[in-house]
């Protein structure tokens, strides 16, 4: 039977990595942004993030499980998750067909309105802009 009771950390890593993979290249900035967003915005702990990525735990979960799980999340959490996933999509400043498809699947599963989806995207775009994926950054020497 399909497991619709996946927890938030597992759902986050499933949906985030699906978006990163859909973007074809997987820059390090996307990798790091995934964990930062999980801890800073979704409020997950380091331990929860590590446990969610345990191979035995996550390897048998499919994207259909993910869509069903996201649908069952409280609205506030699912909306934050969608914003984070869109942030991952924007970090490489390009749009690929499977990214578009995954975003539309997630947004439909959460049942957000077009207006709300646009708001999520604006927030995601602002966060993605801050990540400066071009590499011309002024990181600490």
């Amino acid at each position, binding site marked *: 039977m399909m497991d619709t009771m996946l927890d938030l950390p597992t759902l986050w890593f499933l949906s985030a990595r699906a978006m990163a993979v*859909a973007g074809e290249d997987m820059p390090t900035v*996307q990798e790091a942004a995934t964990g930062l967003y999980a801890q800073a915005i979704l409020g997950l702990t380091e331990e929860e993030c590590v446990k969610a990525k345990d191979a035995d735990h996550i390897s048998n979960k499919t994207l259909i499980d993910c869509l069903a799980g996201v649908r069952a999340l409280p609205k506030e959490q699912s909306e934050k998750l969608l914003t984070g996933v869109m942030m991952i999509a924007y970090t490489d400043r390009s*749009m690929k*067909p499977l990214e578009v498809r995954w975003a539309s699947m997630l947004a*439909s599963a959460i049942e957000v309105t077009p207006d709300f989806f*646009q708001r999520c995207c604006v927030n995601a775009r602002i966060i993605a802009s801050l990540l400066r*994926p071009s590499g*011309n950054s002024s990181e600490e020497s």
Partner: protein
Amino acid sequence: MSKYETNFQFLERFDKRVARLAKQAEKYVHTDPDSCMFKLRLMVETMAKKLTALQMRGDISKDLGAMLGALERSGALPRRQADTMHAIRRDGNAAVHGSPTPVPTAMRRLSEAYKISGWFCKMMKRGTKIHLDAFDPPEPPAPIDQQTKRLHCKIDELEESIEQRRLATRESLLMFGPQEDVEEVTRRIIEELMALDNVAAAAGEPTIDADFVALVMAMDLEQIEEDPRHGGNSRKAKKEAEEQLDGIKKHLAERENEFLAERTFLLEQRNNA
């Protein structure tokens, strides 16, 4: 190891400047650990510049942190080596800014620098085979008293726990767990995404469809490109976003056509039966 020997002789064949810095760091590790860290940091910076010149194109920042970040993002610098180089950079910066370096910390970084030196040589001359013996810690110039030995043990334990803590934080931040086969997971996700793409091409998405998502994303990408931090001008940003949107529209139309062709084929099969 006697005071006349060095762990870094092998480096001479590959890069004389890096070899000299490594040997100087080795020489200072007991007598002046701060200077050891300066030399190690400079050694890492020299390595990063050489790797950047060899592997990267375009205008790369001269800042060491940014340089390492760019090398890592490009895939030229593996995670383990990047961690080591960042650790040397951090401790080197701390020493430059007046934070005293304990001997065990400098020794730990020296030993790590030895390990990445072997990797660096392979990067500089592809196909080179390097056999590195175990790192031989330089002996102190004079015997160490028991009290100092105890202190060194405590500092070593602290360094180890900091190392473990950093590793745990890093693992928690990454997209994949250390035990996961990233290639296999990626392949599976792509298969699933393509299957979902097929289903959606046939049935559509119930609330937010792909055309709408593509339009919103194109508008956002234009805004991101226009952001002064990325230095894009409005006309170029708009053109790039439009090109990306056209690409997606073309893909969606093709998917629809494929679906229609498949349906027509099935109908023809049935009619012919």
